[in-house]
């Protein structure tokens, strides 16, 4: 006998959506999507060409991310241009068909993380999708594929890679169960992909140092494992700084390897050091640092933390806003959609629409 009041209600309770965990925002722990009560007011003070204040923090209070963005990430000429425009004016330009991408990209170079987050938060999801379509870096959207094999069989990996390349995926990613096999898997993917369609790019996602070795040996053609985080304690906990990551990016490039960074909302809250800030504001800090490091692109949109972001109100919109910010900052975007976001097929599809309808540079980071 069903315990529900009616069979109808009982069948509703069995739906996948009922397995979702939804929480009330808890800003002190960073469990808030955007417009957090503790997010700083946007500000930017420039003294004789030097940036001395960002988002309410003076130079003496700068953390490692503030310093990196202040020294490398903000164009002071664009900053003056952007400062003369109101929030409403700037955010309307994002959805104005008559305002070209190049103008918006130029203005983005003068915006601080808090202002970037505030401006996109003025848009509703449909407006965000329109802006994202307009700001996409690649001419046409593309996709990445994951090519893995439980038995790590090089022949099967190569065959699957060849099929993925022939079917049109622009980038292929593999990883390994046993890290010693990494070079073998990387070779299988490289050989298979170039057989299917020459020019397709490949990567093997392993630990940072080993990844760089694969790149140095010429076994991979791109890397996107360079993770960045929006607060100093989490960044340092990840055993890196913006300078070490940027140096790593140059090292990859010196071996002819394409580099994309990775960031995503919710990672700081998950690692326990969100400093009371919203997910979108912290992601805006990540993206400002990624651009300042000279990356040509970023994999973002919560990525592996997606289940956490979707458990707070406005999470789906926040993820779309992240992708939009990356595109606005002139970064090629691989927009996730490769981790399990929800129990509900309907909710997963709804989340995907944000990237699928406008068409990001890489709609999924691993199909």
């Amino acid at each position: 006998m069903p315990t529900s009041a009616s069979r109808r209600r009982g069948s509703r309770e069995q739906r996948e959506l009922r397995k979702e965990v939804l929480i009330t925002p808890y800003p002190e722990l960073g469990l808030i999507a955007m417009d957090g009560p503790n997010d700083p007011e946007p500000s930017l003070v420039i003294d004789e060409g030097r940036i001395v204040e960002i988002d309410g923090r003076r130079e003496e209070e700068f953390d490692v991310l503030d310093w990196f963005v202040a020294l490398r990430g903000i164009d002071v000429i664009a900053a003056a241009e952007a400062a003369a425009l109101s929030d409403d004016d700037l955010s309307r330009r994002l959805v104005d068909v008559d305002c070209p991408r190049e103008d918006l990209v130029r203005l983005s170079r003068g915006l601080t993380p808090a202002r970037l987050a505030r401006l996109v938060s003025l848009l509703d999801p449909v407006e965000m999708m329109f802006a994202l379509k307009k700001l996409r870096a690649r001419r046409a959207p593309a996709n990445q594929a994951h090519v893995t094999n439980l038995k790590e069989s090089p022949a099967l990996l190569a065959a699957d890679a060849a099929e993925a390349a022939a079917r049109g995926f622009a980038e292929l990613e593999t990883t390994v169960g046993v890290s010693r096999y990494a070079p073998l898997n990387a070779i299988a993917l490289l050989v298979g992909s170039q057989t299917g369609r020459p020019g397709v790019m490949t990567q093997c996602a392993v630990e940072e140092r080993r990844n760089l070795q694969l790149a140095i040996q010429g076994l991979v053609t791109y890397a996107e494992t360079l993770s960045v985080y929006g607060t100093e304690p989490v960044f340092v906990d990840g055993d890196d700084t913006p300078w070490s990551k940027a140096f790593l990016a140059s090292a990859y490039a010196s071996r002819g390897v394409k580099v994309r960074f990775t960031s995503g909302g919710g990672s700081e809250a998950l690692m326990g050091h969100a400093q009371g800030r919203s997910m979108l504001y912290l992601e805006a800090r990540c993206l400002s640092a990624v651009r300042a490091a000279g990356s040509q692109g970023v994999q973002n949109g919560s990525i592996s933390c997606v289940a956490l972001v979707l458990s707070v109100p406005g999470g789906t919109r926040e993820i779309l806003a992240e992708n939009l910010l990356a595109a606005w900052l002139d970064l090629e975007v691989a927009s996730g959609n490769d981790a399990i976001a929800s129990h509900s097929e309907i909710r997963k599809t709804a989340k995907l629409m944000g990237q699928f309808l406008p068409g990001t540079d890489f709609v999924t980071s691993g199909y």
Partner: protein
Amino acid sequence: MRFDPANDYPIGQKRPDLVATPAGVPLDGITLEAMRRGALAWGDLRATGDALRLQAEVAAAAGRRPLAENLQRAAELATIPSGTILEIYTALRPHRSTAAQLETWAKKLEAANAPLSAAFVREAAQVYAKRGLLAD
């Protein structure tokens, strides 16, 4: 003919005359036939500082200043041994190096004809000192 960073991209298609391997083999010299003859070594199939500098020019012409700077640093690192690069990366991780150790790396980079990378390491050292990210 002068390189035009606004129009000569992709360089391999539009200006193949400007691209060569570290040993000076031109782009159309990279063939399976040459490989079989032994005319190409494994180390020949990699980026050169010159090619990366052209890429940096393309990025700068498109207004992508940080990307251009990254590619300029990469051009400097192209001739630096991989082991050294991994050592410098490790030295730049948090709490790994003293200010003096980072300064030693900066001097080595300068001596290796990599002034931009040297300045980058010095900049990191200054910020690490302010944020307590140097080794004790």
